[in-house]
């Protein structure tokens, strides 16, 4: 009961900020509260959202995945390369490539026992190198055969863009998985105390591996969607997304120390950061550097407030 109240309040910390941002946007910009603009925000952030979902699982186990940005690029490049063979091949292989690299992360972390920060830092560097090498540092255009991919990136279902649909679906599945499946519960358990989880008989290694593979797969899906949207696979795509994803997860209220948080809060975090960018663009006169300053300051304010709420709730 207490736990639920805490997590609800944590979530509403970011939620309150999101609502506030939306209110400000609606009051200040005529174009903000239009279906067009709101769908824009959702669509634009769908890829980062998928990456952040994977990151949520990883962070819940107490780990971190710095390689996601590079894995997005790898998947995008693979998908673009294989697109002449058909959309399905491109989709599956793109995701598989990133998932495989994610699995490598997981193996190095759980079996070889190197810290996640280092493993994924190395993977971030190496996978970026691989993407650049595989493409001779050039963008790869999508083949003509990949009409399915074009739909994936730019189509819509009943007015809802496909990437947005996938995003919502992924979060729904992620939420259910975390709350109602054993895998999800084990993710929480490991983040709480890996040693305790092991001693209680959980297959900790396998869960950690699965989590990083999942993070890779979601980054892969994001990469394929990105390629589909842009019509080209870019080896330099998604640089810095790992930090954006971490920021979204944390702003949402998931603790980096693991074991506490959830998927829904991450979605709120993603949207919150996305809305901020959208507002910057609608304002249109804030210089990029002031945007940096404001983003940093905003991030600080949200996490400080979030921390206060969490502590107050934990003690009260």
């Amino acid at each position: 009961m207490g736990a639920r109240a805490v997590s609800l309040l944590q979530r509403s910390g970011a939620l309150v900020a999101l609502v506030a941002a939306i209110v400000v946007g609606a009051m200040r910009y005529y174009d903000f509260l239009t279906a067009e603009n709101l769908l824009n925000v959702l669509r634009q952030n769908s890829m980062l959202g998928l990456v952040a979902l994977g990151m949520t699982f990883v962070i819940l186990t107490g780990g971190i995945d710095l390689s996601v940005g590079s894995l997005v690029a790898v998947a995008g490049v693979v998908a673009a390369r294989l697109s002449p063979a058909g959309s399905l091949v491109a989709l599956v292989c793109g995701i598989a490539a990133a998932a495989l690299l994610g699995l490598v992360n997981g193996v190095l972390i759980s079996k070889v026992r190197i810290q996640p920060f280092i493993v994924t830092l190395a993977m971030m560097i190496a996978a970026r190198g691989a993407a650049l090498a595989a493409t001779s540092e050039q963008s790869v255009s999508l083949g003509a055969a990949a009409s399915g991919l074009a739909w994936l990136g730019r189509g819509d279902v009943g007015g809802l863009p496909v990437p947005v649909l996938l995003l919502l679906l992924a979060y729904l599945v992620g939420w259910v998985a975390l709350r109602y499946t054993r895998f999800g519960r084990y993710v929480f358990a490991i983040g709480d105390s890996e040693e305790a989880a092991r001693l209680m008989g959980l297959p900790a290694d396998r869960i950690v591996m699965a989590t990083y593979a999942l993070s890779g797969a979601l980054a892969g899906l994001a990469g394929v969607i990105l390629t589909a949207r842009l019509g080209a696979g870019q080896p330099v795509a998604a640089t810095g997304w790992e930090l954006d994803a971490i920021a979204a997860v944390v702003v949402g209220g998931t603790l980096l120390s693991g074991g506490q948080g959830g998927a829904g809060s991450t979605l709120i975090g993603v949207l919150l950061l996305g809305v901020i960018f959208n507002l910057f663009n609608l304002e249109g006169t804030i210089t990029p550097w002031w945007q940096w300053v404001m983003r940093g300051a905003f991030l600080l304010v949200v996490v400080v407030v979030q921390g206060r709420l969490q502590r107050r709730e934990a003690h009260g």
Partner: protein
Amino acid sequence: MTAGAPLLRMEGITKRFGSATALDAVDLVLQRGEVHALVGENGAGKSTLVKILTGAYRRDTGTVELEGQPVSFDTPAEAQAAGVCAVHQEIHLLTHRTVAENIYLGREPRRWGFVDWRRMNADAAALLLDLGLDMQPDAVVGSLNTARQQMVAIARGVSLGARVLVLDEPTSSLSPREVSILYALVARLKAQGTAIVYISHRFDELYAICDRVTVLRDGRLVETRPLAGLERLDLVCLMLGKRRDELRHGTTAFAEHQARTAGEPTTAPLLETEHVGGGSRLRDVSLQVRRGEIVGLAGLLGSGRTETARAVFGADPCARGKVSIQGKRLDARSPDDAIRAGIGFVSEDRKAEGIIPELSIRENLTLAALPLLTRYGVVSRRRQREMVDRFMERLGIKASSADQRIRELSGGNQQKVLLARWLCTSPRLLILDEPTRGIDIGAKGEIQGLVNELATDGMAVLMISSELEELVEGSTRVVVLRDGESVAELSGDQLSQQAIIHAMAEGGSTSSPGIAPDHPVH
């Protein structure tokens, strides 16, 4: 399966950590339905042996047979699947998760493949009720005190329906009521044919429930034999590897406390708390400690003993009341203030709040005294070495050198280092919270002796303990807390285990708290 074969047989188990041998060709045989005591000093290898049994550690050599079949558990998961489970010494629970989740982790009830929360909570509630535990299944484990956490761990172990259940120091933080619940559980499991390995440093418990005993010393098997007919003193001899005439009598090293002069009643108290309250549990505590006194603090679990100590020490804010040292008001906002006022505090939780595991004995020992060792901003190596050498010798700290990492020491030796940490600041008042918890009988005696000596030399000591024997024999006076209030103060002839229990439960005060009692003259 051969009839009559033991349920479990471990043979020739050897385990090295780095180049140190923790276990050297140890055997352990368990029969169905027996409660098997595993005893030995701190660091004898008891926990290591059971961790190997449950797959938490890998053995270097040796065989394990379960019902005659050779088995080899690489992970606790495999052991658990085969019916070998453990409640480990350091409580291993998920602190952010609920009681129910902890109990059912790994075997959550499911419905259409999804975790069935409702049933899980209902099952947990039923289980807790059955075990006589008053606990909400959806309480977050981290919010429970040590004792309750321990009971959750035991509930989980019991409910796993294991064929072999290891209980590694299950009672170290339990109160008598919970201990009796545990006894009942053990009896029930025994009747079902479960073999139980029971590790404890409390001899009363061993004799109350164990059938056979295996004694380890320095990682080697000394003997396995029925407990009945083995005298306590002989068991101690086996543990320590001494002949009987090398030992003397007495249960605690405090015995004959009356011999010590009872403080200096004429002088003003060194520590005085008046109606101290604050936090979630502390309501109204008044007590006094004089130089040369050991004042015991008794109470049931959660009665606020630790919180009183922490409030005096400035570790937790104290919202109401007044704390004074030598008549001067002390409003310690942080431990820093208290240390400057000459107070030292040894926490009840050695691992979480005591040792800095990666640092050496030297650094751990001098941590609080660094300001004293510093000249012109530089720590004097020479003086530091002298101080460390002096205290390691005086307290008899056993280690390869002062540079050894403290986490490599046995619990007793860690505790001595933590005591030394405060002694080298020459405090006027030392607060000891459960100073002998989880410590073997030998080290316990040494620590008790030391505390006694300190008080004799004029230090004021406030000692919290759950062992009434220790309180009765060691204290000049005992203050009893109930529900965050000091309800009684016992001294002299009034001071007995019976009286303390009575006061803890019902709070009949024999002398009003806060008022300096008369000290019996001897």
